[in-house]
């Protein structure tokens, strides 16, 4: 099981989502993708998309206004 971190700090709304979508296609089954974000909007749409897609998702606020979205690719 690999862990891939993508740094989207300072990137505005659709960018973290698109990066996460592209990265998730590349990684293997069971790998974990960690998306670092500080844009409150991405905090909503990244988990929403990943959950809808059926992956396991966890959001953690690592600092004030900074989050890590942890996505485990399950399919």
């Amino acid at each position, binding site marked *: 099981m690999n862990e891939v971190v993508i740094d989207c700090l300072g990137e*505005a709304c659709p960018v973290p989502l698109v990066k996460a979508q592209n990265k998730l296609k590349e990684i293997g089954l069971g790998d974990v993708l*960690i998306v670092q974000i*500080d844009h409150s909007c991405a905090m909503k749409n990244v988990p929403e*998309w990943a959950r*809808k*897609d059926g992956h396991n998702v966890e959001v953690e606020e690592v600092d004030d206004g900074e989050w890590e979205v942890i996505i485990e690719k399950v399919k």
Partner: protein
Amino acid sequence: MSETTTTSSAPRRARSRANRKPKKNQIPIGLLVVLGFVGIGLALAAKSAMLGFFWITGISFGFILQRARFCFTASMRDPYLTGGTSLTRAVLIALTLTTLGFTAIKYGYAIKGLPIPGMGYVVPISFATLAGAFLFGVGMVIAGGCASGTLMRVGEGFQMQVISLVFFVIGSLWGAHDFEFWKYNFISKGKAVFLPDVFGWFGAVALQLTIIGLLYIAAVKYEQKRSEAE
């Protein structure tokens, strides 16, 4: 809903959480800011009741937008990007509420024979409306937020959107500067439509709510279709 049994388990984690600095306690600052809001509000209200009212409504709007992560940009963009329409539906519900509220206010004035407030906003629609809406749509997706969203994220301290804000101000000033030209040459060529004049008060509300309802159903169907396709 495609979430079945697997979602209850959290992702496995191998990461250490050692390098995490403790968060600062923001409550004292928050209390100070609230006191500041109240103080400024009282000062404004002493000058004019309307100013105080604007202050309160402005702060309430900002607070709700921020807490709800409400985003008009996302409501138009996420159906395409994520297949999720929760914000789209939230905007439709907001439109329903404002339709009812504004109709109540305007109808209240109309049956008393008073001039209807807000009629200055009934402006001609034309091809310029479409062109402007398209440009605005492109711009807000690139800038990462519409007007309210940009303001809200500047308030959150998101630096990139300070740039958006600067150009938002420049663009607005530029637009205001040239507005007479556009109004004379393009906007005034269109026709202003006030729905109650055409369909009657009940007809106008019924029509608008029907369209919103159909859009809502379309949003739900679209979301189901997208999650089945994946």
